[in-house]
């Protein structure tokens, strides 16, 4: 990683975050060494609480991909995938993860010692196609037990009882699978506790995000890495303790009137996944005294869980994690942006048109129309890719953003 690509992060919590990230992967390697099962699973699902309640270590390839992008091993993984015949037009998470699993895994110097190999795989028909296909490749690559299951892909506003009921049946299948694998019965009290931790984490998460409604905002999208605990450590105290510390820190900043930059003038909204290999983009706006104060992606955990109904809660969480940020619920996503514009006093929106993610990128022109016609908020869209730096041009980004920011400043 070159110096110029380093993000300027300002929260002290980043020190603890680095430890949490290292510890998550170290724990995976420890589990492997100690004979505790390691399962590779699709991202952002409610399965994680079940895993922790059963002492099974989860590995999320989709969380691994941004690490590879940040550490610079993504390009090698893409090459491995391409040599195997996978089109460079496919999602960067997919290409990175299968490239790593098929060939990169035997290479030296992988970030954080690489991933511990799976003892089993959960292959879900749910979420986006590239995720499903990632697990298709993994199932072929690793000769381990596989649970094939699925969940409805349904807009949030259309979720009905039968969707939740079906989700619960799938959770029960997963429990039976894990019980068979570990030889241990699931302790429902532990699952309730894990769900309670997740509920608490979601509550604190919302509070943390809401501090950004203040002018000046106490932190920007450059700190988005804190969501690592929402992806990997739900269902544990680790997430709750860390988020409590973040909340204290950002509230302190609000009380002291301490913003990201000394003279915040422009407040921006960011749509779509960040460019994980170039997080410094979020600092780029600062030269115009502008701060990214809200994003679509960080809204994926605005939900509550009921520890009294743990199975229904994790089924619901799993059901909404995909539509909440994608075009499955385009209307819901637009509603979210409408609210953000009001609550976070947004002056302008930056939309990352992301070649690696069609489900999030489709509908962005509709979003722009709503911003312009209903909300009178100027927006700019730039072409990029959340994993592949070869599909992003900094010069084009600068040209577009510079003109946009000058226009916003003139408006303000």
């Amino acid at each position, binding site marked *: 990683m070159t110096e110029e690509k380093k993000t300027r992060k300002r929260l002290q919590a980043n020190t603890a975050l680095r430890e949490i990230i290292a510890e998550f992967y170290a724990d995976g390697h420890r589990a492997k060494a100690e004979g505790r099962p390691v399962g590779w699973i699709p991202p952002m699902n409610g399965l994680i609480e079940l895993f922790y309640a059963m002492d099974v270590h989860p590995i999320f390839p989709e969380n691994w991909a941004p690490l590879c992008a940040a550490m610079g091993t993504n390009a090698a993984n893409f090459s491995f995938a391409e040599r195997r015949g996978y089109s460079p037009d496919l999602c960067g998470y997919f290409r990175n993860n299968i490239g790593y699993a098929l060939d990169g895994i035997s290479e030296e110097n992988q970030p954080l010692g690489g991933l511990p190999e799976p003892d089993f795989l959960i292959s879900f028909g749910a979420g986006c196609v590239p995720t499903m296909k990632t697990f298709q490749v993994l199932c072929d690559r690793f000769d381990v037990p596989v649970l094939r299951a*699925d969940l409805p892909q349904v807009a949030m506003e259309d979720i009905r009882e039968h969707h939740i009921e079906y989700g619960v049946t799938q959770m029960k299948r997963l429990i039976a699978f894990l019980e068979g694998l570990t030889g241990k019965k699931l302790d429902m009290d532990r699952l309730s506790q894990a769900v309670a931790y997740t509920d608490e984490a979601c509550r604190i998460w919302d509070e943390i995000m809401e501090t950004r409604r203040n002018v000046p905002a106490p932190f920007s999208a450059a700190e988005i890495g804190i969501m690592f605990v929402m992806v990997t450590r739900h269902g544990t105290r680790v997430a709750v303790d860390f988020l409590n510390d973040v909340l204290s820190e950002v509230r302190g900043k609000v009380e002291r009137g301490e913003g990201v930059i000394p003279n915040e003038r422009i407040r921006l909204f960011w749509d779509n996944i960040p460019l994980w290999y170039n997080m410094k983009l979020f600092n780029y706006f600062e030269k115009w005294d502008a701060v990214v104060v809200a994003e679509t992606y960080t809204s994926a955990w605005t939900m509550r869980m009921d520890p009294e109904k743990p199975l229904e809660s994790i089924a619901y969480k799993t059901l909404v994690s995909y539509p909440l940020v994608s075009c499955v619920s385009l209307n819901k996503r637009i509603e979210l942006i409408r609210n953000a514009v009001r609550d976070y006093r947004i002056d302008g929106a930056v939309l990352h048109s992301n070649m690696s993610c069609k489900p999030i990128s489709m509908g962005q022109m509709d979003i722009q129309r709503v911003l312009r016609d209903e909300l009178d908020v100027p927006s700019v869209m730039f072409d990029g890719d959340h994993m592949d730096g070869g599909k992003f041009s900094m010069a084009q980004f600068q040209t577009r953003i510079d003109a946009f920011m000058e226009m916003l400043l003139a408006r303000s």
Partner: protein
Amino acid sequence: MDFRGLLDEQTDIIDAEKRRTGAPVLGTLCSYVPVELLHSFGIVPVRIWGQADDMHHADGLLQSYICPPVRNLLAMGLEGRYDFLDGILHCYTCDATCGLYNVWVRNIEPRFSHMISLPYVDTDESRRYATAEFEVLIGKLESLTGDAFSTDSLAESISLYNAQRELMREVYELKAAGCPIEYADIYSMNVCSQVLPVGLVAAELREYLERTRKMTPGPDGRRILLSGSVVTDLPLLEFIESTGAAIVADDTCLGHRLLESRIPDGPPLESLVEYYLSRPPCASRADFPSRRRILEETLESHGIDAVIFVHQKFCDPHLSDHPFLKEALEARGVPSLQVELEGEGFTGQVRTRIEGFFEMLET
């Protein structure tokens, strides 16, 4: 009249049907929409299919890295070519079509819209869930038409679709047995079955089969399996066969996959669920082992000499499956070619690649 002639008259036929029955016409975006259910309400299901005047009419709403078919379909909608529809229905399959559904609903504003989500695995629980999903659709169709759902009516619709699919299956069988049927005819037959009223297509099929059964099977050239998603380029299909090859099997969004099994006898709704869940999966259905197995079985049963993959640029499901399928073919010594279409139809470049492939097979 032949299938191609019927397609030319699609708009008039649908108009006349609408006037005759007064029933709504609903557009569908995917073959997983249970058309039998719609038909049982008297609704005419019409697969949204065809060629826009200019695909770039969708540029204001879809990025250039969305697959050409999806951009093309939205362009058709924006051009007003589907203004006769009373609504739109979708079943989640690929992400791009889900996005298309959402963008269509927001911008073309049909008075009725609904998306269902079918399960990916076939278990007792998933069948119960799929039944519930169909029941939600039934409730919406009852509101739309003002009619109550009738199992008798569904049973009748199922039997009509079963009969039509059986006739279509026979066309495929005759082709595979060496009858000189052009695959372009089969393609047109498949499109007809998706975009025209079921009874009308069955009548045409009966006539077609009467003529075709009399043909003398002859030796065909190389036996080709066509694999891909939405293959709409008739000139491309014609060109493949103009080389002397015969497309005797397909694995595409519109082809034999939909005909392979019949809707079983029994309680109509449950039977319908069984058909949709046990059908050979498309590339978006997360059941790759079945896809590979079916490919291998087809190679055997149809004596396939070579496979031509016709893929659409940016198509995640098919581009992800391709290396696997290619590997399975290589393991059996079956040569294959992949052409990737970029929305410009049958270009000179695609033609050269196909020519080169057949030349390579000769050597």
